[in-house]
């Protein structure tokens, strides 16, 4: 799935894609890497696109859980379950995401 042109996603910036369900968040790190994960925090209903990107880690804007964008692992609680990651490729300057076939780890009470 083509997301956008890499030039339109500045380093340090995140983009929420809600044409897929559940929505995903695409991050361009300061180091120039691009990662895609589910946008909804696994703890409660918060959008990780609004979170705090630092290195390869995003911190949830609500209760500050941290996820490793490379693996989806929880780096800091209160979240207990990792975030689903999606494969990213950059082709001809465009960001493409292959949506994972794994089950998303949606928080309790949230469904899409």
């Amino acid at each position, binding site marked *: 799935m083509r997301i956008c042109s890499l030039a339109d996603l500045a380093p340090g910036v995140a983009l929420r894609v809600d044409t897929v369900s559940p929505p995903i968040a695409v991050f361009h790190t300061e180091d120039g890497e691009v990662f895609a994960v589910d946008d909804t925090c696994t703890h409660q209903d918060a959008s990780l696109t609004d979170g*705090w990107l630092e290195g390869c880690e995003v911190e949830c804007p*609500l209760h500050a859980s941290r996820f490793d964008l490379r693996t989806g692992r*929880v780096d800091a609680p209160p979240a*207990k379950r990792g975030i689903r990651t999606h494969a990213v490729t950059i082709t001809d300057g465009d960001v493409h995401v292959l949506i994972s076939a794994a089950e998303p780890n949606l928080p309790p009470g949230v469904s899409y």
Partner: protein
Amino acid sequence: MSTDHAGTAASGLKSVTIVGASLAGHASARALRAQGFDGRITMIGDEVHRPYDRPPLSKEFLTGRATLEDLALEADDEQLDVEWILGTRALSLDCPERLVTLSTGQSVRSDAVMIATGSVARRFDRMIDGVHTLRTVEDAVALRADLVPGARLVVAGSGFIGLEVASAARALGVDVTVLGSSQWPLSRTFGDTVAATVQRLQESRGVRVRNNVIVDAVLGTDRVTGVRLSTGEQIDADVVVLGIGSRPAVGWLGESGLDVRAGVVCDEFGATAAPGILAVGDCAAWFDPIRGRAHRIEHWTDSRDRPSISVARLLSGRTPRQGLRPSYLWSDQCGSRIQFAGRLLGGEELTIEAGGVETGDLLMVYRRGGNPVAAVGFNQTRLMAQWRKSLTVSAASVSPPATVPVAEPLSQPFGA
């Protein structure tokens, strides 16, 4: 965990004991492993539970929307290789020997000790049936049993915990009166506009809020029947919650020789004056360069994040470079999400940056000498995230106020 095992090798440390098995204790164990420590970690906690999250105790857990299992702090795939000694109190600490004596009669000796015993709620002398404080999961279960529809609840104290309990109790159909000692709820910390917004929010859900009153005593012989104010006025109640602040859980350190008068006094990295003894979380008063004195912060995020700085210091023996993010806290009340970030010293100028009091989406910024030092938002998650980031930069450029208050103010439960 990290494959970098330099930590253990460089420091020569083989064993670390962590006292207090909650947020800061757990974060300390995580940080030790993440930074390459592969020695023995012993975790001592007087609660019987593995580390759990306290903020939901006055929110989702109190209203029954979350279970104890939901509150666990350990991640599903976590392998910390920790020796847990739970349901056991630490009774004393011998600093030179780094020896912790336990309520079971055993003791644990190690190369370093991290103190993470948190805080305890302030209580009245007479804690008869129906009078509650809220700090543990058992406290929350006991309180919930008393919050039956139609019961009359009086909350003494208009800090965060009191206000959150009020909100949860209203949701459970309880009749609620909040009695606060200041001019507005929370006002000592956040200023009048924010406080008025909070009061409005509470009143919109049917909570009665009375300010400038002091609760002197609880009434009743076996079970509470009400409270008495300093003016002599009596207010009937079936249930009373005391949200009147907390104090550091440092009683067990009385003979240790550590300075524990206002929390465990530490340097900027959590090291006490005793070699190999550090303190983290709510119980610790870290030196704050901007305040120019040791200061205890009772916020969730600080308690979680500071241990990694202490651990870096412990393992390397050097001054860690990593900086702290601005303090951050949230509070859920009456369907509103309140967020605060930054550091308030008093006397800041406040401006409305977005939204408004009436619309329930107020965002205000606190400035000192023109520089933003803190921000507070109501249902403004996205903007608050942006403000938090910008505060990191500006906090470093702020000079301390001309006069620094010397005395530790009465702490508010997770106050700023």
